[in-house]
């Protein structure tokens, strides 16, 4: 087992375990924390894949931004001590079945597929390249999506504000 494999397995173990915990934990704040672990380990995977920049984004935006957002909202809407009610079995079983069958199907199909065996480049992706790509408007340039996502974020912001605005009475 190479160190890479080891690291991968470690991360994936963390991811899988904490994912499951995220969706089963009865304390909501813990669940959020577990989610954070999952996201951080994912960032670890990105590091492993030599996508340092992406890993950084994952850490800051995802783990940092979204999880914080979630935690804030938890604090706004729930009592920390409160235990979440568990779902009824009538709900769990079908869900579990679907998830299991779906996962099995996907895994079987994935394993059957004959991916080209090319070994990926192990080079670290250059942040300059990323930046250039992001503002380039040619093939494989991402200037346009970049603009679009800004509109999206703006719209989301407006939407969130409109909804969360307090009523003026």
């Amino acid at each position, binding site marked *: 087992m*190479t160190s*890479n494999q080891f690291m*991968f397995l470690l991360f*994936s173990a963390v991811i*899988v375990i904490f*994912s499951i915990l*995220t*969706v089963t934990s009865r304390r*909501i704040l813990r*669940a*959020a924390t577990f989610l954070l672990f*999952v*996201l951080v380990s*994912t960032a670890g*995977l990105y590091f492993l*894949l030599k*996508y340092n920049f*992406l890993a950084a*984004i994952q850490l800051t*935006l*995802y783990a940092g931004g*979204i999880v914080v957002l*979630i935690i*804030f*909202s*938890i604090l706004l*809407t*729930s009592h920390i001590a409160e235990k*979440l*009610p568990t*779902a009824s079995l009538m709900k*769990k079983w*079908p*869900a579990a079945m*679907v*998830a*299991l069958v779906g*996962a099995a199907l*996907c*895994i079987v199909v*994935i*394993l059957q597929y004959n*991916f080209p065996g*090319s*070994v*990926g480049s192990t080079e670290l*992706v250059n942040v300059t390249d*990323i930046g250039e*790509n992001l503002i380039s408007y040619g093939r*494989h340039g*991402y200037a346009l999506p970049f603009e679009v*996502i800004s509109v*999206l*974020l703006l*719209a*989301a*912001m407006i*939407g969130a504000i409109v*909804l*969360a605005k307090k009523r003026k009475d």
Partner: protein
Amino acid sequence: MFEGVPLSWFLILSTVMFFVGVYGFLVRKNLITMLMSIELILNSVCINFVAFNKILFPEHMEGMFFTIFIIAVAAAEASVAIAIIINIYRRIVNIDVEKMDEMKY
């Protein structure tokens, strides 16, 4: 295969994570926990893109950029969702998804 880690490992991992997310989405009653499940789902997809990009098609960074944009969209989605959740909480002091069934049949 990436430095000894086969592609399929990544894919299996992401698939498992994806369906764990789906499972969570289907059973968690609290809206915020459901939102977390969504994040799991999106995260698993990100892993797919990144893994494909790195291991199979490293010449361009399409997968990676896709991941970046997914993260951004996830953030936007989460913000709107949370705004709605908070709005609901203000109205009925409850964010149990099972209570959200005023409209049916």
